[in-house]
């Protein structure tokens, strides 16, 4: 059967609809196909989605409520000096928008998300809520062993949801599907880096967000379609600077912010948005024990990140490498307000960049920020400063 590839406009429309759907109707629809179907949500930044998928379930990335959700009850649970994502996530749950999720996994990223796991247990005792610890000790015999035990325990918790015993073959199969997906996401990022005018970050971002919810094969197909179609879009390069955005890994910037960055003269050539789709940087082994393969991928092939102990190579080194690889002109630190992991890293990054003579700029946002004036001014000046001065007075 031949299938007509959707156009770029159609893909954008579809992904935007998914992004804006705070009711997760896709999940409902997916589940309605069979009574045994289950969906499990997970918080940013990383989740070994293969495990959920292999259990016959839909992994759903929950990334807060964005800028269209009014916070009515969520503030009842969080002080003003905490970041925004937990309150909007609670709001989603209290307003029954997450009812289609049979469980939630809270990966170890920071104390806020960690405590959120306990809050979930108190508020929704009937739902599965798991905290998933990641190793900070990267010795396979120590951290690796511990992480494997964590994964096993998660696996059995999941199997309680649909009473199906875990199967290694299923996990291997899932690993293959996600490997393919990751390769395409990587292709998308590479294309954007080489021809940023062709792949606006607005679109790339929506595509990534779609991957948070769509079934992995469907998403892979969508990526493929986009990559084929976008090549023939009549898009022209502009006089923009190339930047890498760092710090937006958990609470996501509002779409308006991404647009503002682009309009103020920046091509984003790398970023840490929706990081779960790119956390693992190489194919996960599809031979041998699949759990072991997941553990190994985490220990050896995961990206540098604020909630991962940096070990002997400071994170700014990785960032500088990234700047070079992506031929970026500068770095934009965009962190959510009150995000300790991102904000505590920033001065180190800045220092490293300064020593390397790489331009950078910093601002904070919240997922529901509606005012971009300040940011526009700032980013506009940043891009002005990088491009106006080639022959200035």
């Amino acid at each position: 059967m031949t299938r007509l590839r959707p156009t770029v406009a159609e893909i954008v429309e579809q992904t935007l609809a998914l992004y804006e759907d705070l009711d997760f109707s896709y999940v409902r629809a997916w589940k309605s196909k069979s009574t045994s179907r289950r969906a499990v949500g997970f918080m940013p930044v990383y989740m070994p989605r293969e495990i959920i998928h292999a259990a016959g379930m839909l992994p759903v990335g929950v990334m807060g409520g964005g800028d269209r959700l009014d916070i009515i009850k969520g503030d009842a649970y969080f002080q003003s000096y905490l970041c925004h994502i937990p309150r909007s996530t609670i709001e989603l749950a209290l307003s029954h928008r997450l009812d289609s999720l049979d469980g939630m996994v809270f990966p170890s990223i920071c104390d806020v998300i960690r405590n959120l796991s306990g809050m979930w247990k108190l508020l929704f005792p009937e739902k599965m809520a798991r905290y998933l610890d990641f190793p900070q000790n990267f010795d396979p015999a120590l951290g690796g062993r511990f992480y494997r035990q964590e994964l096993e325990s998660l696996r059995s918790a999941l199997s309680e949801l649909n009473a199906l015993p875990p199967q290694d073959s299923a996990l291997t199969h899932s690993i293959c599907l996600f490997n393919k997906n990751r390769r395409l996401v990587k292709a998308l990022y590479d294309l954007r880096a080489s021809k940023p005018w062709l792949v606006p970050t607005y679109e790339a971002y929506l595509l990534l967000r779609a991957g948070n919810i769509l079934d992995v094969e469907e998403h892979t197909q969508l990526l493929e379609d986009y990559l084929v179609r976008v090549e023939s879009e009549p898009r022209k390069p502009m006089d923009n600077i190339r930047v890498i955005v760092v710090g937006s890994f958990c609470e996501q910037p509002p779409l308006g912010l991404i647009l503002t960055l682009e309009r103020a003269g920046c091509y984003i050539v790398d970023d840490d948005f929706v990081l779960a789709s790119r956390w693992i940087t190489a194919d996960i082994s599809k031979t041998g024990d699949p759990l072991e393969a997941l553990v190994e991928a985490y220990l050896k092939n995961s990206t540098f990140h604020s909630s991962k102990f940096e070990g002997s190579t400071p994170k700014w080194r990785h960032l500088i490498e990234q700047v070079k690889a992506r031929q970026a002109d500068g770095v934009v630190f965009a962190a959510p307000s009150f995000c300790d992991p991102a904000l505590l890293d920033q001065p180190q990054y800045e220092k490293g960049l300064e020593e390397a003579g790489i331009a950078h700029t910093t601002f904070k946002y919240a997922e529901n920020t509606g005012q971009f004036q300040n940011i526009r001014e700032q980013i506009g000046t940043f891009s002005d400063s990088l491009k106006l001065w080639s022959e200035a007075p």
Partner: protein
Amino acid sequence: MGYTLGIDLGSTTTKAILLDANDRIVGRGLTNTRSNYEVATAVAESEAKINAHFTFLKEAVDSSPKLSSQAAPLLNNLENRFHLVQHLHRVNRLRRQCLFEAAADRLLPHQPRLTTVLNALFDQIHERAERSFSTADVDRSRFFRDIVGSEYMALAEEQSRESSIALDLLMGLYDKSILVEENQVLDLSFVEAIQQAVEAAGESETLTRVQQKALREVVEEAASQTLEVDNMVGTGYGRQRLPFRKDQIRSEILCHGLGAHYFFPGTRTVLDIGGQDTKAIQVDSQGIVTSFQMNDRCAAGCGRYLGYIADELNLGLHQLGPLALQAKRPVRITSTCTVFAGAELRERLSMGDAREDILDGLHRAIILRAMSLLARSGGITDEFTFTGGVAKNPAAVRALTRLVEENYGTMKINIHPDSIFTGAVGAALYARHTQGGIA
């Protein structure tokens, strides 16, 4: 027979309530808070007493066979006249103060011209007051400062155009003088003012000689009633600085809870949006507070936010809500900060958005903040009472009603016409009931 007095020294307004021995409200006093809390308290108290005198007067007129037929217009007229007398008195004081400021050394070169301009300006204020106070509906929620301020501003603009005296200079004089004026207690007694009012009323009304005499008699009688205050309790933002004993001071949270219970015994949740703070309070069946939340020191969630916006638009506070109700395509306001919202408002206006549509968004913004506070205090339980100055604003009420319905379901929402006095009522109740030692 003794009365109790409750004073709620709010950040924007100071409220006083007089309760009689049966806990009936006989007097209400309202004034704007100013730098001198004692003055604010004294003014509110005297306003409450004046109001009580009018209450007595009304009773006397109603029961006087000679006057009862014309009671309503007569009293209304009398009250307007009374306030005009007070108002003009203050206008004159303000005029003197402005002239005095204009004589400052650094202004000497301008002084002759300034004097002329100021006198012309105040003559007009005077005239306008005569006119506006005689037409029946004066908006009493606007204080001296606001009424005179906006007139002064408009007239000063005119004058500065005509006379080449800088607007900033004229406004500066006003800003200085109003502060001085406001920090004085009114040196005009009820008796003096009411007599002048009666004179004026006598001249204008078609009263028979007999009626005029009867009027004088009831007025005299009402004026001579003494208001023995047995005990008083102060509450509110500035309570710590009230010249009261410690046991005469109660937290505004408690007073609000009790006051809301007084008006609506079924109340379980109270939302109070005042000038500088917003409180969400849960009370039990006795009006005793069980939990509460207050906002941070940020104007974005309270009445001052709307006040600031009203200033930006050169509107009176009371005009804001009705305008917002006419919104057709509500605008979502993106700034949180009041000052930034003001800038956003101006920007949007000049981009062509309608005033009412923006206003609707601004009202919604403040109510959204209140919703979050309510949630933090424990949600909303039937019956729900909305108090504070902002409860007078119909657009705020509408936004609240909608959001409550959407998020907590249908329930009874109470708003009392005297709701701004809720805290003062609570305080007056405490004043009565702590006397017997039931603290």
